[in-house]
């Protein structure tokens, strides 16, 4: 069993996981189910990253999406009342219209995507940790700083929004 044989198998499994979990997020009636399926989908995407050889990004993916964003969303779910709803209240009224618009684009783009080919010399790429670190901290140092300011602003904004007025 060489890696070339294993890779498509993993790829197929991960694809099934991503697509079915994604569809589950949209279709699930209960919001907690949606949230967990979303986390599962994120994990599968992380698997894809590992398959692509980007372990660092995969680790960040799990750390941020599963460890932080999903938990945040679960918090949101728990602070708002959720009840399973009748179909008419569950989907918006524009669903048929949305289907007409989205499906053609989706099919077109997905088919178009297959036209991308690997660069022949790209196969020998090693670990992504060092090039990633070099890029982030050297070439993109300034955007990195800006991103940190953005995070700070978001943090303050979120606190201000959620803070109750003290009377």
């Amino acid at each position: 069993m060489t890696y070339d044989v294993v890779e498509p198998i993993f790829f197929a499994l991960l694809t099934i996981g991503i697509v079915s979990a994604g569809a589950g997020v949209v279709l699930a009636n209960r919001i907690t189910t949606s949230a967990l399926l979303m986390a599962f989908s994120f994990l599968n995407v992380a698997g894809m990253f590992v398959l692509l050889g980007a372990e660092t990004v995969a680790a960040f993916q799990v750390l941020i999406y599963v460890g932080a964003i999903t938990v945040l969303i679960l918090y949101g779910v728990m602070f708002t009342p959720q009840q399973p709803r009748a179909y008419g209240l569950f989907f918006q009224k524009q669903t048929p219209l949305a289907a007409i618009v989205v499906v053609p684009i989706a099919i077109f783009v997905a088919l178009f995507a297959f036209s991308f080919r690997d660069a022949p010399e790209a196969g020998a790429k090693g670990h992504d940790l060092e090039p990633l670190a070099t890029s982030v901290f050297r070439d993109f140092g300034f955007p990195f700083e800006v991103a940190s300011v953005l995070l700070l602003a978001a943090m303050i904004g979120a606190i201000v929004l959620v803070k109750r007025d003290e009377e």
Partner: protein
Amino acid sequence: MIQNVWLIPALPLAAFLISGLLGRRWLHHWTGVIASTAVGASAVIAIGVFLEVLGGKTRTIVSLYEWIGVGDFRVNVAALVDPLSSVMLLVVTVVSFLIFVYSNGYMAHDHGFYRFFAWMSLFVFAMLILVMADNFLLLFVGWEGVGLCSYLLIGFWFERPAPYVAAKKAFVMNRIGDWGYTIGMITIFLVFNSLNFTDVFARVEENPPTQSVLTLIAIALFFGATGKSAQLPLYSWLPDAMEGPTPVSALIHAATMVTAGVYLVARSTPLFAAAGPALGIVGIVGAVTAIFAATIALVQFDIKRVMAYSTVSQLGYMFLALGVGAPVAAIFHLATHAFFKALLFLGSGSVIHAVGGEQDMRKMGGLRRKLPVTYWTMLLAGGALAALPPLAGFWSKDEIVGAAFTNGYPILWAIGIFTAVLTAFYVTRALWMTFHGEPRDHHLHDHAHESPGVMTLPLMALAVGTVVLGFAIGWPPEAGFIHRFLTPSVEIPGESEHVAEVGTIVVLAIVSLAAGVLGILVALAMYVRRRPDPVAVARAAGPYYRILVNKYYIDELYDHRFVDAMRALFGIAWAFDIHIVDGIANRLGWLAVLGGGGLRRVQTGIVGNYALTIVAGLLVLLVAYGGYAAGVFTR
């Protein structure tokens, strides 16, 4: 040491940040100590830099970083350290330090203590940037910075209306001057394609542009200088600025900021020298301002206002010196004036402090015994102002007046001598009314007390400077240390200074000394012996006296003529705006309302609908892109 010259402004900046951010809640009165220490450290470094410049490093440019780099437009944050700027650094830091120490006592009971020191530190920072800058833009940063601090500090007691109004007036008048500076700066960049002093002055010498362009630049810059240095026609903010705390008046409106204009012109000497009539204008404006302000000072009763008009007058002297081609004398007078005028202000502050905030000299009198230190130090400073040898003022003023004569401007020389008489008169009058005679208000007199040591020590230090400075660096006249030191950086190219013969110098010195003595004697005659009685003189000269008391009605003139004209203009503009501009806008508005009414239906308020629109737009884009790729649109 010279590479660390940036520390000199950095320390006051740090003091500003610390006092401003932490002062209100935590540091309180420690801010005074912190700020004074920082400025003191700056002064020490400035002395080091000065010594190094003295040791032969006559021109160093310390570049911190590139501030602006757009195409050809390159501006560095860089310090130019040469004899001129090192002298200015020294004067600014030393005088600031003494005034900071003094302020610790003077402001001790003010609830805005930390605010005062934060802004004073910021001011020192901006002033140091101004004198260290190696290009016009960075100088402008300092220029605006000191203007801002001046505004903040004049309006320091903003709870009262007068300081607030005075601050606004100072700010607006400075802005008018800054407009001239900005025009000059932009023209410099357009003409020379650079804002660096070095580049600009080099190009002025190598391939000068037309005379008229140079004159325009010089006049515009000088207009900026008149705003900052309170010359005609933009002088009237300075007397009003006395509404600020006295240390502010001493530091900003006597010793440092108002000399920025002098510094600018001195720094731009090559430019002005090449600009033909510009120097003449500088000299005439200076001379007229000198005599003009001195006449007003004759009749003022507010002790600080006398000093303020005196400052305007002395600044006029400096411009006079610049105008007659003696920049060294101007800077020399700037330095000595910084000491004795700061001393006069601090002394008046001490008096005001002693009599509980009273500024009217008519209510003082006989304070000599109550305030011995203040009295003696102010007497020295007054002597310096009246140009009595061997005090500092004598050497520098004599050099200015002498230069006017030897360089061939006898009328300006005559004005200078006459102004010297007036100067001696009003300073004698002010000191007499304050310290001698019978106490006129016994209540104030009984409660007067000498200021604490933290205030009198700076007075004494400044007095030492007042006594020795002129002699130390001005001897022998026309060839003293200050000449040898400063000439390389302000020398007018291609024009050697007229060196007068010793005999001429002595005669000129005796004439100006006689002028000072004459003024003093007249004043003493009027106020000690009452012969002629000042009141009688005032009555006899009725209309002229009233003109002087009302400061030539300049404020009213500005108010009525300029402001009314502006109002009328604005009225027309307002009508145009209401009827034509707004009319068009309103008609367009109706169109928008009608169109919006139709489009309102699209705005459902349902987020999903908006998102769907976005995706539909994506679809349209894709179709368009597909068509483009397939070549539908090319055929």
